[in-house]
């Protein structure tokens, strides 16, 4: 046996574990006759735990500060601290999604093996995207993730809304993949390299060559458009509201958390690892996208009556905010503040994932058989029905609005700080004015829960929910407060992760 071969590929252990585990689960599930799919559910959690251990093992092997960077498979795959951190958050998000959605799926007869295995395979796609070091791996991971998600959106076959959403998601997603691929091919054509590090090296050498520059600029435009599609920032956001609204809530929860992290990782890998010498081109594009997203997201969210749609527009606005961190790295060709700026964006992505999971978890908590709890009205008088969950939801909303002492405030503070440090004061002013507009619709949820009394049609008692959901949801809400009071460890981790790139 060739031990060195095995040892060399150990940094990809989490992916291997997940692949093997998910495949095994498929077989287990096919033989299972249990309508509750207990074995599949527990198996999936065990697979996630094994992934956690595997990533822990890789982290343990990458130095005291996690600074070692492993490049495998001829440069196709990279395992670094940013990847480990994002993967860990993704495991947590997927595992939480499984816990939150179990009751919902059982009540609707949707707790089938497909959901679990598709979820795990989409996670594998995210992990490949996160660890991609070549244009090919980026695309491979993206397609694996997206195809699983398309199918998951259509999980509830009898719902016309879900089918329509899946169709839209598929068509627009395919278009986005096409754009991305087109941009990649141009970049490949200009540089002759697929590996992101090679692309960066060649670009640095080619700088100033005018004819290539136009060609490259086109490539960058298409790549940025593809990334914008996957992040869901305006004007490439059209699929977000329909998919968030139409998909079953557990799937919305998944779409709103892990894939955002993966798309963020894709943006960092492509733009920062690969196309950094062209930063001046893509930073300007990101600035436009950011302002548009914050404007469209925040203003349109006000008009929504469905909380899933509202959170969809909130996602658009928040992703615009996240771009503020990505676009302030390079100031006049100077890279000094780049790690700071990118780490604020990473911090934003992680905290947003925590908030998003919590908010959709609340929607799932209130839903019951035959009742979705996805109208804003359904939150009316929640303080009377359950002060604790109302308090948690208030924390989540205030955090999304960016108010202290919640973690959302530090996320906004950090990206605004990097924008101001990069001399983009006007962008920062635009961002705060638009987030003020945004505060209105988050406040409306607080208003409904605290100021309004229940309407007659509402059922006073909350649905019966397992202890696991209650504990996890409480922890999720309190994490918002905890990281709000002590944001430093996470901020520092993000900085280290970016510095290890």
């Amino acid at each position, binding site marked *: 046996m060739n031990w060195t071969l095995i040892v060399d590929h150990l940094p990809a252990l989490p992916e291997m574990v997940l692949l093997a585990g998910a495949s095994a689960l498929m077989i287990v599930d096919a033989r299972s006759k249990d309508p509750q799919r207990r074995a599949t559910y527990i198996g999936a959690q065990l697979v996630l735990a094994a992934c956690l251990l595997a990533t822990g093992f890789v982290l343990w092997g990458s130095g005291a500060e996690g600074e070692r960077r492993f490049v495998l498979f001829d440069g196709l795959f990279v395992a670094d601290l940013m990847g480990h951190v994002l993967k860990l958050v993704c495991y947590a998000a997927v595992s939480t999604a499984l816990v939150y959605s179990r009751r919902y799926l059982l009540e609707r007869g949707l707790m089938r093996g497909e959901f679990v295995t598709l979820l795990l395979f989409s996670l594998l796609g995210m992990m490949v995207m996160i660890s991609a070091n070549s244009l090919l791996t980026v695309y491979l991971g993206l397609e694996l993730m997206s195809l699983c998600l398309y199918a998951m959106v259509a999980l509830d076959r009898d719902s016309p809304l879900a089918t329509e959403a899946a169709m839209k998601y598929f068509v627009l997603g395919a278009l986005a993949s096409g754009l991305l691929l087109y941009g990649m091919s141009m970049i490949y054509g200009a540089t002759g390299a697929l590996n992101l590090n090679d692309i960066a090296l060649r670009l640095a050498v080619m700088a100033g060559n005018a004819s290539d520059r136009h060609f490259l600029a086109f490539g960058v435009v298409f790549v940025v458009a593809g990334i914008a599609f996957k992040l869901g920032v305006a004007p490439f956001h059209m699929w977000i509201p329909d998919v968030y609204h139409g998909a079953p809530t557990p799937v919305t929860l998944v779409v709103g958390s892990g894939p955002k992290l993966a798309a963020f990782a894709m943006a960092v890998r492509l733009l920062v690892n690969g196309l950094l010498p062209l930063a001046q081109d893509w930073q300007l594009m990101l600035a436009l996208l950011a302002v548009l997203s914050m404007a469209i997201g925040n203003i349109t969210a006000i008009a929504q009556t469905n909380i899933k749609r509202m959170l969809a527009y909130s996602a658009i606005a928040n992703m615009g905010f996240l771009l503020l961190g990505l676009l302030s790295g390079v100031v006049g060709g100077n890279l000094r503040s780049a790690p700071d700026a990118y780490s604020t964006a990473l911090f934003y992505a992680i905290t947003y994932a925590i908030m998003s999971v919590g908010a959709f978890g609340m929607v799932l908590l209130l839903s019951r058989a035959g009742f979705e709890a996805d109208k804003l009205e359904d939150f009316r008088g929640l303080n009377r029905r359950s002060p604790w969950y109302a308090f948690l939801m208030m924390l989540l909303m205030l955090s999304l609005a960016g108010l202290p002492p919640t973690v959302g405030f530090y996320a906004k503070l950090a990206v605004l700080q990097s924008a101001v440090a990069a001399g983009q004061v006007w962008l920062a002013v635009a961002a705060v004015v638009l987030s003020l507009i945004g505060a209105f619709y988050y406040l409306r949820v607080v*208003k409904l829960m605290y100021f309004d009394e229940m309407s007659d049609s509402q059922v006073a008692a909350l649905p019966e929910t397992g202890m696991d959901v209650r504990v996890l949801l409480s922890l999720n809400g309190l994490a918002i407060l905890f990281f709000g009071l002590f944001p430093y460890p996470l901020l520092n981790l993000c900085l280290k992760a970016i510095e290890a790139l």
Partner: protein
Amino acid sequence: MLLSLAIWVPIVAGLAVLAVGGDERAPLQRQLALIGAVVGFVVTIPLYTQFQPANAGMQFEQLVQWIPRFGINYHLGVDGISVLFILLNSFITILVVIAGWTVVESRVGQYYASFLVLSGLLNGVFAALDAVLFYVFFEATLIPMFIIIGVWGGPNRVYAAVKFFLYTLFGSLLMLVALLYLYGRSGSFAILDWHQLPLTLSEQKWLFFGLLFAFAVKVPMWPVHTWLPDAHTEAPTGGSVVLAAILLKLGAYGFIRFTLPILPDASRELAWLMIAASLIAVVYIGFVALVQADMKRLIAYSSISHMGFVTLGFFVFNAYGVEGALVQMISHGFVSAAMFFCVGVVYDRMHTRMIADYGGVVNTMPKFAALMMLFSMANSGLPGTSGFVGEFMVIMGAMQASFWLAFLAATTLVLGAAYTLWMYKRVIFGAVANAQVSSLKDLNSNEVIVLGALAVAVLAMGIYPLPFTEVMHASVDELLRHVALTKI
């Protein structure tokens, strides 16, 4: 440590009240809240007794690293300017807890928890020496106040609460950008470091307007005052009291902690603007107060007019003006709190705030009428009450700057007397207006404690203001020295 206690004792007490449970345990929650408020006040007393008035710098400092990545520290400290507000706030909190004792019956725990948490956060604003810490406390006060107005407020409470929230948030977000810019220039979030930071005049002007929105909305200055009458009218009595007595002071405090020492050149350059807005507040809002039919609205407008005096005092840049403004802030804390408590007393019995529904209250509530007389006099600035001291000092300060300034400012003595005493006359004197008035009961023991404590404070400060002013001398002199130096 003392300052940390002043901040965290009320907050922890508030959370403990919440943890007790629902309305079925209300008596226990009330007792717990009172204990929390009293302990919260007791821990602030050493801040005064151990304060060294000759020392112009920060005292009782505490510095702990919080977010080293951005140089953000948990840095607390008070000087002669801020120490009194912490005491005032903790004192008012006790009164608010007592005043709500029998009045609040639904969601008692949440009511008291909101006020206790708010009290701790407000102490934090006055004690913070780190800009981000200041901002966190400043902004976090919005949440409990939003809930207080929205849950226990009047019929139009939702509109008032949202308006209050969005107005204030707009200002503070612009302030956030200004603070980040200052961080970019200095590499530090320490407010005291910024006092030394050189800035060009145009930078100072931009920053001045960035900060102005945040503080002007909070004060509130004309023309961004329109949220206040709505918020005051709809808030429950305790909410109005804290809003008038403490929250309004945050804006004025911001001017004196940030704008004046950090942006001295812009402050001098743009003083005309601030003085003009202050005088409009004093005179125009005084007239507006005169025509109000709703008692709470009238007192709200009177608050705006009095706060105009405060901003006027700051921007004449002399010791009389600044000290007078500070005294006026504290006095207004007592007097406006007392006025809102008075309205609360009759509102709880009659469930109307309209002046027209009252008349002849003195016949059935003589004790109340006597106490309200004192507070009305203080509100109109009668010598011997706290209201006189501050106004007199500010007018003296304005006189040093210009006669006409002082002349216009002094019209408040006429206008203030007119709107306050006219309201008093219509509510208290005259024939008994209706059957409801004739069946009114005089003050109960809780109300006597609350109004009596405030009456003592108002008289003590009016007759012997030295204990209040001697604390602030050194710090005000230091501040004025900063303002006189150019930073360009």
